């Protein structure tokens, strides 16, 4: 066993500001466990009634894409103009489309 003291892990905090809206990433914090993370998130991020629901997830569980690989990740969508409505030629008199 190592003598090194264990540090509190990092948690990402997501808050729903009102029903109907999605949870949005608000920031992060350190906490010993999920209960503490939730309570700390409430104390840090919703002191002025910013939310009606909080999600916390330990940061290490988030798999993030690598910005260095943005080319192969996102560029393939760039030349697919036919996925957009403006690609299709319709006369101006056609309404409701």
């Amino acid at each position, binding site marked *: 066993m190592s003598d090194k003291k264990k540090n509190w892990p990092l948690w990402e905090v997501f808050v*729903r500001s009102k*029903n*109907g809206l999605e949870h949005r990433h608000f920031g992060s914090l350190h906490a010993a466990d999920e209960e503490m993370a939730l309570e700390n998130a409430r104390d840090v991020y919703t002191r002025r009634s910013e939310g009606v629901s909080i999600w916390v997830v330990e940061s290490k569980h988030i798999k993030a894409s690598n910005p260095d690989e943005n080319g192969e990740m996102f560029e393939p969508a760039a030349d697919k103009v*036919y996925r957009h409505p403006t690609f299709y*030629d*319709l006369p101006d008199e056609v309404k409701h489309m």
Partner: protein
Amino acid sequence: MSEQEVKNLEEIFEAKIARDEKIEPKDWMPEKYRKTHIRQISQHAHSEIVGMLPEGNWITRAPSLRRKVALLAKVQDEAGHGLYLYSACETLGISREELYEQLHSGKAKYSSIFNYPTVTWADMGAIGWLVDGAAIINQVPLCNTSFGPYARAMVRVCKEESFHQRQGYEIMLTLCRGTEEQKQMAQDALNRWWWPSLMMFGPTDAESTHTEQSMKWKLKRKTNDELRQQFIDQTVPQAEILGLTIPDEDLKWNEETGQYDFGKINWNEFWQVVKGHGPCNKERLQTRVDAWENGEWVRDAAMAYSEKQTAKKVQKAS
């Protein structure tokens, strides 16, 4: 929970809906609200998935690369929309496996329109123009429905679908400006898809068993008949631009109401198709079940690979 407690919760719930507040998955909701939403959202998801099949029929035979990539993109969107909807449905506490089982066993329904065959290329035009046109009219009010995950999924779906109808109409327009034979093909597709498209809005308000409750919960914001009328009023002028004739002798502009009067819908046909006796019911379901079963080894292989990788990591760490 005592009866009184449930009643109190129901009152709070109804008041929330009345104030146009959204319901989120962890909020208390009446069991019937949950069940009705599972039924409607899953039917909607199944329709996206089965809806890929009639169009899939034409991907390899599209008349040009331009048409092919557009059709491919549309079918791809439908797979994605099925996924958004299944995920929204799962927030209500039903698993993906159960949802698939309901579809594959024939217990769950999907939109009856997909039980009609796609016999010519013009059908790709007619489906985009009419079937997606009707779907959009059905879906736009759902962006504002009371259940949060469903409403948010519909916002994304509606945004992405805006090209579907235009690509269909463009196909129709090209055919109608082509040879006499091509125009005839477009007319034939309109003749076959018109009435089933009108049936997509469901039974008349007088016959609809779910409308009243669904309106109260703001699961539905407009009735079947209102939506159907809106579709007809929007679509007739579009047919005129194409130079095509809507196959309804009773279709007539009504000066007084400011809407089109239209002929009688063959509800007997509608119920026959709903009950499984449409031209392609068996074929569609079988194709779907086959796709699921034939894909099993791929799902298993991915899982086996993942387990192997995890085991390797554990071994390295120890």
